[in-house]
């Protein structure tokens, strides 16, 4: 945070892009774009503001004004512009975007992959509460078997708060969608939140059941590729790159399916997975 002639500016690092937000307090909801994950300065900058207008609100992205019906709509526009810009820059580096939460356990990076509603954010929040190093609840950019988490606040649904009542004491911002989304800065629970590249050791496909026990099982490569590609292709301009990067990823990472029931059991399953030697997986030669 730097002060410029009494005006407050905030730099939000997204690794491929720095977002500059002047006077974020003019829009409380704009806080949804902010986070406290330290990122090195990026080569390009995007300036975002959300401002009221006599007939509604607008988002200002690099000075380009787009009207919106309300404050939330304007923030959503700005958020999408940021995500699109990140995707363009990451893709230009040959990275594919996997729909997956990212957790590091015992030095092993694990991707928790699944479609929207599969439980990524709920499990990510539970892992965070368990004291583990969760660096994204949504996406990872992957190249050469290395994953860089997408830095952003976690997006939690009301059901997540029902499962994890301890979260209500955390730094939550309510976004007035219907049903509402609760925005959580992971730094509120994990002061060591870092957005660092690391090789992926395990890929876990989430299979939500919402009740009963959590169980981990192995998944064959063909199934893993099909499920991962389904979520990655819409975010990639070149499908052969998706296939190539998935092949590289799965050449060194083991793949599993997690039947996501009880969260405490799911956490124990992932801890046990991280303790497995890669050699025991029979994948490293």
């Amino acid at each position, binding site marked *: 945070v730097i002060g410029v002639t009494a005006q407050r500016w905030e730099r939000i690092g997204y690794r491929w892009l720095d977002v500059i937000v002047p006077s974020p307090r003019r829009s409380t909801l704009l806080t949804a774009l902010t986070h406290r994950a330290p990122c090195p300065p990026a080569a390009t900058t995007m300036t975002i503001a959300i401002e009221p207008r006599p007939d509604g609100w607008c988002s200002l992205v690099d000075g380009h004004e787009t009207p919106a019906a309300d404050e939330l709509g304007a923030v959503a526009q700005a958020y999408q512009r940021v995500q699109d810009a990140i995707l363009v820059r990451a893709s230009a580096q040959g990275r594919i975007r996997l729909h997956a939460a990212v957790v590091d356990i015992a030095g092993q990076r694990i991707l928790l992959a699944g479609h929207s509603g599969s439980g990524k954010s709920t499990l990510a929040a539970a892992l965070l509460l368990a004291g583990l190093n969760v660096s994204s609840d949504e996406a990872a950019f992957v190249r050469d078997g290395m994953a860089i988490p997408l830095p952003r606040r976690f997006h939690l649904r009301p059901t997540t708060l029902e499962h994890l009542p301890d979260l209500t004491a955390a730094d939550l911002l309510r976004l007035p969608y219907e049903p509402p989304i609760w925005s959580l800065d992971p730094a509120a629970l994990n002061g060591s939140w870092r957005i660092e590249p690391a090789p992926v050791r395990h890929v876990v496909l989430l299979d939500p059941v919402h009740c009963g026990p959590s169980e981990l099982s192995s998944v*064959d*490569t*063909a199934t893993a*590729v*099909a499920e991962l*590609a389904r979520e990655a292709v819409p975010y990639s301009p070149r*499908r*052969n790159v998706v*296939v*190539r990067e*998935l*092949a*590289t990823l*799965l*050449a*060194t990472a083991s793949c599993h399916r997690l039947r996501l029931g009880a969260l405490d059991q799911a956490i124990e399953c992932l801890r046990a997975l991280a303790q497995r030697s890669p050699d025991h997986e*029979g*994948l490293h030669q």
Partner: protein
Amino acid sequence: VTTDTSGPVRVADVEVNEVADGLLLYRGGDDTVHHLNPLATLVYELCDGRPRPDLVGDVATILAVDPVDAAAIVAAALTELTRLQLVSQPDG
């Protein structure tokens, strides 16, 4: 290595990627992905135009199986690889 190219050959324009349990093939023309298991991978990689009897013999040697069993493996694999248009055979 044989110079006789009368046997099955891999079709061009297929991107080949290694995975832990075989190969992941991508063909841009029709935007398809195929995963070959280890046996299919072995046969696919030997499809360099060598005559089919040589192919069977090589599979038998590599897998240390009876030639009859190797012939069955090759036949099954080539049928599928040809159907998927990953391999072409001189006789169609």
